[in-house]
């Protein structure tokens, strides 16, 4: 293109290589983390079981059978986890409930992720007055007793799944926005962002191309920790009887039912609680593992 003299010996020619991105590196490190890997495997098993398990059982989640009320677990009649007080198969109900719990976790987290990241990154990048205004709005929203509000809404409008997703997501995006804003504030001062400004890149393109991808690490960690948090909120609401509508169920609702007959029919509590606890554990371990894997201080 121009008369640039080649003044320096280039490095020895090597064949075209595909670079190893930071994510590839992080995943390699994650693979060395035994707790996180086991958790990941367990999570995948749970998800597969939840998705495919119900169709492998001869029973449906809302089939009542008054001849088989409160049966203990047995493999003979395919009631692997026993039945509940209405004779419904607990194995199928646990898995169907798992679908709902995981769905709430994922959807609500996704809602909080999209709102939180774009809101936080915008506030952090522009800084100054924009940042002040946007973060004061967050502060005001923080001050509202959200759980109380959710309960009121659910009581007022009746139990509505969509409402619950949105309500829970709306609590969590505030945290996300704060975390993302803080990270953006420090990213914005990095030289590569300045380099993009000098390179004539418009502000929103800088946010999309340089800020958000560099936030993904911390966001990924936060997401894995938010999912279980949201699932707990759902369980709590269900425990209060404000969650899903019968005969649909969730782990929280099942635990609630099971807790009532804890002395006589312990299996009704143990199985859903086991699933819930294991899933929460695994998400937390994966989150911790991700955090360690992405920690730049560890890079050597």
């Amino acid at each position, binding site marked *: 293109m121009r008369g*640039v003299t080649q003044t320096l010996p280039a490095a020895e020619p090597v064949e075209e290589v595909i670079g190893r991105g930071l994510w590839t590196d992080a995943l390699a490190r994650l693979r060395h983390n035994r707790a996180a890997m086991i958790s990941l495997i367990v999570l995948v098993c749970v998800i597969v079981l939840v998705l495919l398990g119900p169709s492998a059982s001869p029973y449906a989640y809302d089939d009542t059978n008054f001849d088989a009320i409160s049966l203990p677990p047995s493999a003979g009649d395919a009631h692997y986890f026993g039945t509940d007080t209405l004779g419904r198969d607990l194995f199928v109900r646990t898995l169907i409930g798992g679908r709902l719990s995981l769905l709430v976790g994922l959807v609500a987290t996704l809602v909080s992720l999209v709102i939180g990241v774009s809101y936080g990154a915008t506030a952090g990048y522009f800084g100054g007055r924009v940042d002040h205004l946007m973060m004061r709005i967050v502060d005001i929203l923080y001050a509202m007793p959200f759980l109380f509000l959710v309960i009121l809404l659910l009581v007022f409008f009746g139990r509505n799944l969509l409402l619950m997703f949105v309500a829970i997501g709306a609590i969590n995006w505030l945290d996300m926005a704060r975390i993302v804003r803080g990270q953006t504030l420090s990213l914005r001062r990095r030289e590569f962002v300045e380099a993009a400004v000098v390179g004539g890149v418009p502000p929103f393109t800088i946010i999309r191309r340089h800020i958000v991808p560099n936030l993904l690490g911390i966001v990924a960690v936060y997401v894995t920790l938010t999912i279980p948090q949201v699932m707990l909120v759902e369980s709590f609401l269900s425990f209060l009887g404000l969650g899903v509508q019968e005969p649909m169920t969730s782990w929280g609702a099942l635990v609630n039912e099971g807790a009532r007959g804890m002395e006589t029919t312990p299996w009704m509590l143990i199985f859903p609680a086991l699933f819930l606890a294991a899933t929460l554990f695994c998400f937390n371990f994966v989150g911790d593992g991700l955090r360690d894997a992405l920690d730049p201080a560890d890079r050597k």
Partner: protein
Amino acid sequence: MSGSLLELRDVAVEYDAGGAILGRRRKLRAVDGVTFELDRGATLGIVGESGCGKSTLARAILGLVPLARGAVILNGEDLAALKRRALRARRKTVQLVFQDPLGSLDPRMTAGEIIAEPLGTFYPALDKTQRTEQVRAMMGAVGLSPAQFNRYPHELSGGQCQRIGIARALIVEPELLVCDEPVSALDASIQAQIVNLLESLQASLGLAMLFIAHDLRIVRHLCDRVMVMYLGRVMEIAGSAELFARPRHPYTRALLDASPVPDPQRERARARIPLAGELPSAVDPPSGCVFRTRCPYAQDRCIREVPALRPVGAAFVACHFTEEIFNYSIA
């Protein structure tokens, strides 16, 4: 006037130094009253220690920080008068090479993507193959192998990262390259590589260059003229050979004195006049001459009167007593 590429007129830059809520705002004047011109193809070194405002000055020239006073005039156009969009288009003329080779590259982009980015914003008409071709040509010009096109910054050495930074700056064919301490984070053997690269690129492309450094030794290799700054103000501007042979400001002299000489016998024989005291705060700078608190020759007049930058022989010096202190035969 019309001949110069860049002109700075009495430029000052201020930062808030806190105290915004309670009490009055305190201003930190990072750059104060800097005036100079730079011709096409000329090289100017800006030298000073940390806190002297040299990096802030570079950012002011690039329009990255607002001016408190004065004007930056590029090709006859006052940058402050331009609208944001026009300013963004004008950015092509001036490009920046950063100090931290790794930190100035987005860790999640490959070398090729990083170099291509300004091409995409300034020449949106180019298609992908044309762009890739130009990036590869540029990589060759800065001594990177085309095989490194898909490498990520953390896979490359500091010297290679700095070459990427230089390629990114040069690919839009700027007229002025501002280098903010481009080699101070590099190893000695790599420093010389990058300095030589900049030197030959500057010559072959006819670039004007502002080279900011704290190391006088490197500036001497690269620049026609040198400007010495202290606490936001210009102490001395002179031709490179002149400045190093006959420093006319006590601060320039102290800087030269402090620079280690890689020669044990001369180093042993050398008598140094060490600079006493500490750098004063820029929030509350000394009255008169800002250097007076550390100057071995300071007198009453230095407390009362701010010395103007005035021609002394072949140089411009901001010192009341340069003739008395340095009695060079001024021809």
